[in-house]
């Protein structure tokens, strides 16, 4: 299972990196979203994998998984949500100001198809 999770994180990172390196804002935003999935998962599994032992204290529970990474990931999710929202709006703003959706604001004919 650990191998599978590592693979998942790797694929998400690879996909995120590839898209983050694209020239237009939209795929970059998608890439950043994928990257945030990857890193959130990564941070989460730093508490190691455990099934059926959520950190909710109850008499019935026999064990609990590490709650701290979960709290950290929650914070990270919220922060990356705010960041994503900001960068999305910035992408729109940049299109409005620069006239196209290239990250460097290049004037290219094929960019203006909408």
């Amino acid at each position: 299972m650990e191998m599978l999770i590592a693979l998942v994180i790797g694929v998400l990172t690879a996909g995120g990196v590839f898209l983050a390196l694209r020239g237009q804002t939209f795929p970059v935003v998608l890439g950043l979203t994928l990257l945030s999935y990857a890193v959130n998962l990564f941070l989460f599994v730093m508490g190691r994998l455990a099934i059926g032992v959520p950190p909710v204290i109850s008499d019935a529970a026999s064990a609990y998984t590490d709650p701290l990474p979960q709290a950290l990931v929650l914070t990270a999710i919220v922060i990356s949500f705010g960041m994503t929202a900001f960068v999305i709006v910035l992408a729109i703003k940049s299109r409005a100001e620069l006239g196209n959706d290239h990250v460097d604001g290049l004037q290219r004919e094929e960019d203006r198809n909408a």
Partner: protein
Amino acid sequence: MTLFFAVLTPFVGAALVALVSRLGRSHSAWAAGAVTLASLLWLAPSWHLPFAGSLLVQQHDWMPALGLNLAFRLDGLGLLFAGLILGIGLLIVLYARYYLSERDSMGRFYSYLMLFMGSMLGIVLSENLIQLLIFWELTSLSSFLLISYWQHREEAREGARMALAVTGLGGFAMLGGFLLLGHIVGSYELSDVFASGDLIREHPLYLPSLLLILLGVFTKSAQFPFHFWLPHAMAAPTPVSAYLHSATMVKAGVFLLARLYPALSGTPEWFWLVSGTGLATLLLGAYVALFKHDLKGLLAYSTLSHLGLITLLFGLSTPLAAVAGVFHIINHATFKASLFMAAGIIDHEAGTRDMRRLHGLWAFMPYTATLAMVAAAAMAGVPLLNGFLSKEMFFAEAMEVSEYLLGGWLLPALVTLAGALAVAYSIRFIHDVFFNGAPVDLPHTPHEPPRWMKVPVEVLVVLCLVVGIAPTLTVAPLLAVAAQGTLQAPLPEYHLALWHGFNPALFMSLIALAGGALIYRARRPLTAWHERTLDRLDARVVYNALLDGLVGASRFVTRLIDTGSLQRQVFLLLAAALVLGVAPWLAGGAALAGSRTGLPLDPVSFVAAATLIVATLATVWLHRQRFVALVTIGVVGLVVSLIFIKFSAPDLALTQLSVEVVTIVLLLLALYFLPQQAASEREPARAWRDGAIALLAGGGTAALAWAVLTRPYDTIAGYYLENSVPGGGGSNVVNVILVDFRGYDTLGEITVLALAGLGIVAMLQGMKLPAPSRDDTGRVWDADAHPTIMATLTRILLPLALLVAVFILLRGHNQPGGGFIAGLITSVALIVQYLANGAQWTHQRMVSAPSPQMGEGANAEPKPVYDSHPLIAWGLAVAAFTGLGSWLFGYPYLTSTYGHLRWPVVGEFELASAMAFDFGVFLVVVGATLMILVNLGGLHHALPKHREKH
């Protein structure tokens, strides 16, 4: 502190001079003169000390731990230079008053001059080497200002920059040299340095420090090959040239040679470096001076030559040579300053300095001509004038040390040649300008200058004469203390006199005089030959090439690196991360996998993971079909939530699910304003390169995850599990961490969210976007903006969703949930209303709940607006002030408390202050999310929307 104040006075005076310049043109000059006198007065009480054989050192702590103190020293050498600086300074002040024209700013000139004077004084009175360097650099800066005084002139700007660059180079080198010297000695105080001469000379760092210091000296004194800036500095007003480029600043270099003479001299390195450079400069300057058509150019190269002479003298390392050096410093200052002033008068009155046009001025200004002729004769080394005396000593010393040199005759021959050249250019100066026919095409008809403009020249020329005739009565005591200050040792036996009998030096002088006359006679063919050949060699060309090279290389490198491409930046960051992350593993010996056994793989997980991977790849593959990519990334988010659920993180799953949908809504909003299809990649190579780094990055993170997951670890988690209920009053440990153990993180996190909302509002201000009236295939949008069935049924969902939100909020402390998720649910419930019923409809209905806008601008439309600022403000306030409450009880910020209330009917009810904190989180989330989405959703309203109707 008198020395300190003597130095400080001109600096303060600089401001004063600038201020009084508003009162009138002469005021600055008077003020400058007063400042100079004041500085002299500060020195007056100590004036006698060097003559009495005592040394004055005044010290004041500045950075004692670093050995950098304010320390001043008055010895013979310092006294001599201080006298030169202030005395000639006074004359320059007077001269400049008449030299500067109506258009020139007096205040600025004198202000700069005072700055320069203070800097020079600082150099010569410094006891601390670093402090000396500080003033040294200040002379570079103030001379930059003075040279560029006529800033509208290209050559002034260029000359100033050149001087600054070259002397700046020297200054930086000298800093290094002094640091090394201080390192060797263990102190920057001159007294300690003088005491450690042998230590220094035997130290392995002697040569580097010597080289660095000499670099400073040579650049400042315009020694070959750094000489080229000096002629270009002649673009300065002539008083500046007279002061800086003859009497003072360029002398700073030779001053330093004299100053460090006891510590550094006496080694072969010193001898060869210093005297070699001096000799080269001596010859070069004298040679080029002969061919300069510009009056000031001639004097500039002559100055070079004389500086070379002095340098050569110090290089010879004999005590007597040093005395001669000091003597020539004095003499050169007097005759050269007067010559510059004379040249300035000529320029001033005739309107040109070109010796091809200036002829026969004797007829127009005989008095000035007489003064100039005396000074020029001193420069040539004619007997009865001061120049002759020091040049005699120089010739004598050259003979003295000639045994070191090739065959014993080379050095005497070369210095005699230099002497002859000096005679030749001096003759030229006189003959060409004052005689040699009639003037050619002068801008003005020349006449004698105003009375007071001549006075400074007269004073100096008189000095040349009296020193030359009666040295023992005049200059001898000063020379003695100055030489003593230089050597820091008993003086050698020497005798100042006009007549030393028939000795080699006298012959050399005679040969030089005769040879000079001959050379001047042969000037035409020589000039022709020079202009054909050597004239084209110009160090300035090298300097310019270097500078252009620097700028060109800088531009090239900078443009090569900084292309303004985001892609490159991201690429570099990733590459850097890869290198940094991988490097430790390359050390070898480290196994990637650890010893921990993992969980078995189950088919459902496999299916989910496979889906996620395929969805990710599909997102990448289909990213140009943006809508499709949006859907596939939705799958990724869904599976990520599933993973959270699977591995015991219900809170995370809930959060991820809620965030996911809001993100999709956001992306859809973005998609509306962005192109829905993207152009295909223009450079396939880039895709391959990016693919490669993506694979590496993916592999890297996978390996990192794998490495950690297969290793056991000890964690502080146990504490949270144990203390969550008794300490935090909640059984959902994740939530208790969020609102209590690490509530501070959460406070930060909601601030981020609030900032995102506010930042977006600020960013969208005044933004206008045309709304596309068709989709990317050219199809007109559907006419039905708010389908009835959707609108009706989603309305039913609203109370239901709010109920769920309250549920999630309240239980969060004990069960999965909490303020953040509840906030998102609330937001989503409201967003659905926006989706289904439109912004205006929804706004109208939300306005009744929170307070309407207060204080609308006059131009505001009377349209109801839902403003989520209060929600954010309240939310942050609740969270921040909940934490503050604990202060009242003497606990740190964010300390929580909880208790069980027993209510009638309801029963026991737990209340925790952390829940209030969570409520703050809730409010911020709702406010920020709505703020973001609603502002973004309303963008197109900025322009009237033209939708084609069916």
